């Protein structure tokens, strides 16, 4: 984690150095421009500040000295001379070298740093900068936990007793101090014996409940120096009585002043310092979005060009069009990968969530992750956070049982939440699974009937029942807890997925847990597709899902005895004829084509009139009106300006399979379906699909 900040600091510092250099050069022209001095000062200040924060102590210390000089410059105590400006430029270069060293490129010459500082001292005169960077740390009122206050050199730290008397002022509580925390911190230094002095507590009638009347007599056994003990009380020492003295004998205090490196003259380095050494560039997301939009436009125009070129008998134009096509494809791929980010950061963030919620809910939960290196479009990742938070909360609160209940059920007392990500064609599957109590199908059904979401006579499959928990305001929780139960959570997930053109599948076994699978498109912008024609309509099937295209002749159909099955290279492939599915009245051509697609349900074929070829598909959203259409994931504009729908093969197959089995299951199904408005809203089906069914 910290490496990320270090990287960020490196980049920021390099930018600041450029800014510093620009300011210095400007200062050279306008020697008493306060604004320019201010800019240089701020650049140094930030380098120093951030440097110290992210562990670049040498850089921070170095910049600190320069900053002090510029502070004096700013206050008019010092004049900007050519020497000072040149030295500052050299110092900026030195900082850059130090940054390079920290990044593993080359080594910074420490003598040179010392020499620059020595010269700086000479230029700024006595009372100027401090000799080294020691002042950078340890001033914050707290020594670093991993840097105990040093004991006198050579003497190994030995635990000894300290007698501490602490009487906070009456107003410490009002100022937000909690004396208890101070005692707790003392105890971290060593064994602490605590005596409470309550003598100052007045009679009940005179007590001001906001005042602190207590005092403590403490004996602390520690190897830490008295400064470390006093340091704990640093925020209150002015408003309290505090004595720290050794309980037994007293040691002489020694201190070793730091030695200062001898100065030597610094040859001022001139010329432009090497820019562009940074291998990473920070670009605003907005610019990337613009880039992708432009590429999208370009792809659309390219489609037109190739369409026009294809119609003309002109080899020159055709050649150019092909070259443009290749370049556009490369450009598109390139700009898409720029936006891809691994899910790792998103996943890591949930460790904290699981940990905290576990503590709040008194449950032991362990988060395991898989496939965190999977990359997704930044926009998708941004929208993924909320749904995942809700799913994890839901699992933690409703899914995973208390340790006692788990033991009673013969499970490990520690529950597990498993977050995983994997690629599946043009999609990414993200799963949130727990090993908790799972969903009670009957309870969900009862609750859904209570809320009027389904008809009490409705016969729904298990997965349909599970999908009911995604309805707004749905909760089977008996009571609302802090964490979840208000029923907003899973509705958020559903809406989030709609926004991302993703889908949700819920699988659960009572007593064994719940797994929610989010299916997301890899990117929201442009995909590779296969353009097909049915009658005079065009569709796009994502190339990532397409396996192969073969011909389907009348003879093949006769061989299958009218069943929608074809034999492709020895494999039996069930197929869906798109013209039937979408109830299009088109003449069936002599030779049709089957596109074999890969879905989560196995291999299926889509029968189309003609496969036209590759198509770089800029995805456009269908309007709100078509929000509930599941089998179409968007639309794209073709070269000739017409619109082609982008099919979602997975959903299409799922819908077809489902409607077939439902038609078998119940004759009254269609009637009920039309009646139950709620259910339709909940589990939307394609308008096309409905038409298709009524036709059959």
């Amino acid at each position, binding site marked *: *984690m*910290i490496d990320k*900040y270090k990287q960020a600091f490196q980049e*920021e510092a390099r930018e600041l150095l450029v800014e510093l250099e620009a300011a210095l050069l400007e200062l050279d022209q306008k020697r008493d421009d306060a604004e320019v001095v201010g800019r240089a000062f701020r650049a140094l200040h*930030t380098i*120093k*500040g*951030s*440097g*110290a*924060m*992210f*562990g670049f102590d040498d850089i*921070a210390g170095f910049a600190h000295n320069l900053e002090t000089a510029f*502070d004096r410059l700013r206050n008019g105590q010092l004049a900007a001379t050519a020497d000072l400006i040149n030295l500052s430029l050299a110092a900026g270069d030195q900082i850059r070298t130090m940054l390079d060293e920290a990044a593993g490129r080359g080594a910074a010459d420490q003598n040179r740093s010392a020499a620059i500082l020595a010269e700086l001292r000479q230029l700024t005169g006595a009372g100027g900068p401090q000799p080294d960077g020691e*002042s*950078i*740390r340890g*001033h*914050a*009122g*707290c*020594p*670093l*936990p*991993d840097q105990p206050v040093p004991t006198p050199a050579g003497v190994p730290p030995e635990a000894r007793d300290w007698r501490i008397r602490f009487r906070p002022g009456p107003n410490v*509580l*009002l*100022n*937000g*101090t*909690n004396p*208890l*925390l*101070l005692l*707790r*911190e003392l105890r971290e230094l060593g064994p602490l014996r605590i005596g409470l002095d309550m003598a100052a507590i007045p009679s009940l009638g005179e007590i001001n409940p*906001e005042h602190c009347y207590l005092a403590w007599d403490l004996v602390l056994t520690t190897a830490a120096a008295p400064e470390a003990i006093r340091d*704990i009380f*640093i*925020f209150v020492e*002015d408003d309290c009585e505090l004595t720290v003295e050794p309980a037994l004998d007293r040691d002489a205090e020694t201190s070793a002043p730091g030695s200062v490196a001898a100065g030597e003259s610094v040859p001022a380095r001139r010329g432009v310092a090497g820019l562009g050494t940074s291998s990473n560039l920070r670009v605003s997301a907005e610019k990337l979005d613009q880039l992708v939009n432009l590429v999208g436009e370009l792809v659309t125009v390219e489609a037109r060009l190739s369409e026009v070129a294809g119609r003309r008998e002109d080899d020159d134009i055709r050649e150019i069009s092909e070259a443009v096509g290749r370049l556009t494809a490369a450009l598109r791929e390139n700009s898409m990968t720029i936006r891809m980010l691994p899910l790792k950061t998103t996943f890591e963030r949930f460790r*904290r969530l699981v*940990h*905290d919620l576990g503590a*709040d809910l008194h449950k032991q939960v362990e988060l395991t992750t898989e496939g965190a290196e999977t990359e997704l479009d930044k926009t998708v990742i941004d929208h993924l956070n909320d749904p995942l938070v809700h799913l994890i909360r839901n699992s933690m609160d409703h899914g995973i049982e208390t340790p006692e209940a788990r033991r009673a059920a013969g499970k490990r007392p520690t529950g597990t939440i498993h977050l995983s990500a994997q690629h599946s064609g043009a999609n990414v599957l993200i799963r949130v699974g727990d090993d908790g109590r799972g969903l009670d199908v009957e309870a969900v059904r009862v609750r859904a009937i209570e809320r009027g979401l389904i008809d009490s006579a409705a016969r729904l499959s298990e997965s349909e029942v599970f999908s009911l928990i995604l309805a707004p305001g749905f909760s089977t929780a008996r009571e609302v807890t*802090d964490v979840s139960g208000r029923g907003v959570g899973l509705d958020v997930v559903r809406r989030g997925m709609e926004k991302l053109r993703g889908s949700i599948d819920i699988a659960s076994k009572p007593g064994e847990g719940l797994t929610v699978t989010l299916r997301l498109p890899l990117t929201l912008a442009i995909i590779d597709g296969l353009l097909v024609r049915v009658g005079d309509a065009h569709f796009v099937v994502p190339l990532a899902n397409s396996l192969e295209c073969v011909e389907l002749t009348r003879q093949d159909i006769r061989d299958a005895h009218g069943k929608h099955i074809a034999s492709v290279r020895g494999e039996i492939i069930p197929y869906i004829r798109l013209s039937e599915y979408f109830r299009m009245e088109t003449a069936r051509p002599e030779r049709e084509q089957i596109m074999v697609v890969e879905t989560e349900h196995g291999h299926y074929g889509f029968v189309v009139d003609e496969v036209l070829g590759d198509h770089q598909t800029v995805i456009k959203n269908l309007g709100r009106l078509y929000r509930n259409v599941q089998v179409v994931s968007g639309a794209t504009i073709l070269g000739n300006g017409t619109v082609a729908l982008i099919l979602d093969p997975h959903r299409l197959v799922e819908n077809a399979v489902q409607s077939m089995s439902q038609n078998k299951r119940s004759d009254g199904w269609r009637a009920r379906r039309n009646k139950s408005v709620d259910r339709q809203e909940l589990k939307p089906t394609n308008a096309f699909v409905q038409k298709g069914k009524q036709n059959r």
Partner: protein
Amino acid sequence: MAKVILTVDDSASVRQMVKFTLSGAGYTVIEAADGNEALEKLTGPVNLVITDLNMPNLDGIGLIRRVRANPALKGVPIIMLTTESQEARKLEGKAAGATGWIVKPFAPQQLLAVVKRVLG
């Protein structure tokens, strides 16, 4: 639930650093760019305020005074971010009711140590 810390600073990078560090330690961190924005954020639950002193509109000292004058915010710890050269301002802040301070620049561990000291 996680404790909520409000970081008030006109420098986005300082806010970010505070946020990175503290959310990494399990605190919930909300941000405000100046004293006025902080007062708005303080209408919600906040367990600790970390404020810079030099800010446009309402500065840190002003913010501390306003918080201490508000009975609803009684006893909320306030940590101010000072620099070495601001000794006078630090005293002013303490007089206004600040709980503690951190001298800038500071390392993440120092921030955490101070937060732990006043917030537990």
